[in-house]
């Protein structure tokens, strides 16, 4: 086991049976989450993110495999005996209690002395800047405020690990951005391990120390945002994180053949054979046609995005590539549709995918 892992899943598998159907929600997932990191589980709807979180919280027991906390097996421990708290997507605030009582609930259940509860609740409320609303009932709060109560309630008992299941998905864009930086700030200040679930790749990239990308119950790749963005292991990750051009190619001897007789250099460690190349739009350059540039394309539609434009390029065999073109104040012109241009890739930008 990695020495600094606070939570570890070992070949955790979860199978749900509903009638005749069986759903493999988690397919032997192994993961070690480091103490104090902001870890994000990222993946499309139904890929098993919530299920993994529920195994860690203790609401479900795995069909097979283990969950460990600081090296101790807690697979069968009930949620109330785990120093792990959850911020639920639906907030799940207690409607019969005030904000203050909601935040103090965990401490009260732990049997903490009343005076200490008062102190800790006050601190938790000031962390999320809700001191003024302490005596309201949850129904009297806005969505964003309820969200912060849920956060304060989960933080008040000082858990070792905080689980957040898409806590921001119900908020509008502006509030969402605000809460994102708020969460980052809290995580820095408190040094608590955060396991954060989202299906928003931008949110994952901006907030996380590390990201685990999931699909169909499996963990496909774990790594820092930069690593996942620049070196996706497969088609799914490349496509899910950011925008990517996927180009079929034949790889041999550190060269990838894209269209007839045109090949470009790739990492010599790349796998050989028929593979897909991944190139980010910002790494595609439009250059004048010349002998030095083997690859040419016809300019198609372009879409204006404000700071930049996306330009469609059609290769000789019909493959479509998108290039991102920075719009400069001086007006770096976008070539008109139909123009024949040369296409170049930034050095090291072409990634050969395993599948």
């Amino acid at each position, binding site marked *: 086991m990695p020495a600094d892992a606070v939570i570890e899943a070992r070949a955790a598998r979860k199978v749900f049976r509903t009638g005749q159907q069986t759903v493999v929600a988690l397919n032997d997932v192994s993961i070690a989450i480091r103490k104090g990191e902001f870890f994000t589980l990222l993946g499309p709807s139904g890929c098993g993110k919530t299920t993994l979180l529920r195994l860690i919280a203790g609401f479900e027991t795995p069909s097979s495999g283990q969950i460990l906390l600081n090296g101790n097996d807690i697979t069968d421990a009930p949620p109330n005996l785990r120093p792990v708290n959850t911020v639920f997507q*639906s907030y799940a605030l207690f409607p*019969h209690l005030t904000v203050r009582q909601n935040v103090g609930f965990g401490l009260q259940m732990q049997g903490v002395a009343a005076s200490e509860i008062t102190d800790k609740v006050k601190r938790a409320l000031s962390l999320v800047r809700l001191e003024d609303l302490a005596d309201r009932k949850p129904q009297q709060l806005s969505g964003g405020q309820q969200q912060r109560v849920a956060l304060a309630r989960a933080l008040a008992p000082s858990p070792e690990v905080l689980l957040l299941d898409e806590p921001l998905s119900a908020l509008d864009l502006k509030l969402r951005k605000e809460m994102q930086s708020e969460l980052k700030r809290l995580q820095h200040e408190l040094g608590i391990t955060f396991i954060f679930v989202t299906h928003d790749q931008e949110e994952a990239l901006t907030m996380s120390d590390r990201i685990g990308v999931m699909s169909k119950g499996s963990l496909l790749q774990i790594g820092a945002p930069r690593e996942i963005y620049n070196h996706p292991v497969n088609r799914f990750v490349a496509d899910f994180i950011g925008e990517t051009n996927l180009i079929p190619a034949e790889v041999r001897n550190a060269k990838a053949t894209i269209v007839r007789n045109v090949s470009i250099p790739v990492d010599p460690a790349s796998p050989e054979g028929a593979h897909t190349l991944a190139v980010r739009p910002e790494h595609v350059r439009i250059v004048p046609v010349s002998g030095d540039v083997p690859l040419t394309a016809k300019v198609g539609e372009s879409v204006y995005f404000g700071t930049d434009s996306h330009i469609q390029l059609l290769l000789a065999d019909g493959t479509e590539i998108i290039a991102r073109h920075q719009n400069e104040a001086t007006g770096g012109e976008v070539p008109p549709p139909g123009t024949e241009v040369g296409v170049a890739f930034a050095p090291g930008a072409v990634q050969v995918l395993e599948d």
Partner: protein
Amino acid sequence: MSTGETKEARRDARNTWLLSAPALIILTLAAAGPLLIMLVYSFLEPGKYGNVVWEFSTGAWVSTVLTRDIFDGTYHLADAHLTIFWRSVKLSLITTIFTFIVGFPTAWFIATRSARARTALLFLITIPFWTNLLIRTFAINQIIRNEGMLNTFLLYLGVIDEPILIIYSDFAVFLGMTYVYLPLMVLPLFAAIDRFDMRLIEAAYDLYASRLQVLRRVILPIVKPGIIAGSILVFIPALGAYVTPRILGGGRNMMIGNFIELQFGQGRNWPLGAALSVLLLMIVAIALMFYVRAANRDAPHG
């Protein structure tokens, strides 16, 4: 505010009253009328062969709780009446508590089934309402009387040598009332539990609450409106129960309802019957006031 607006508001108010007038009149006549008659009768003299004599008297009210010694004319507490009051209140309370203890898990079970099973189960709960109360109560009588099904069966098995004496006891009345009023507890509890957000259980469990604490600190306080409604729906009719104590309690184990009936029948003391009825109403009203106030002390707002 301009005069035009006030005029309009006044006309709206008048129309509202006019429109609700028929309903209000019927309500007044149907609800307040009989009560008023009761109140008036309770301050009159009893006639020799029933009915009332139109002469003001507080005699009926005095005799609800006191009896006059026929020799020296002094007043004593009417033990027989108080016993009946006490039995009524006690049996109704026990019935309410017991229907809650049985009804809560039942309602919880129903509320946590699939939509289809739920409809079927609720339907089953209402089946007893299809038959007349009298017939159902006689059916219970059939089961628990000394030569009834229960005793015959137990004797046949050899579990007992002599019939167990259940019928014509407070216990029999309690049993009958629990059976009769159970659906009235289950239905409002079901409605409350159905609205309960089950995710709160996980939230509480996640915040270090034990199973018992989840029940006491989260579930019960939130479904409290259902508990209050169910308790009221059981306690009030139980307190005034007539058929059940009559058939299962025999003549000796009377409740207020039977005692009142007695005054209008063989007792030929209509004013006393009327005074007892009003007294019953007051007991219920006071009990309700206390109960609702106590229950609402920390109920959720809104």
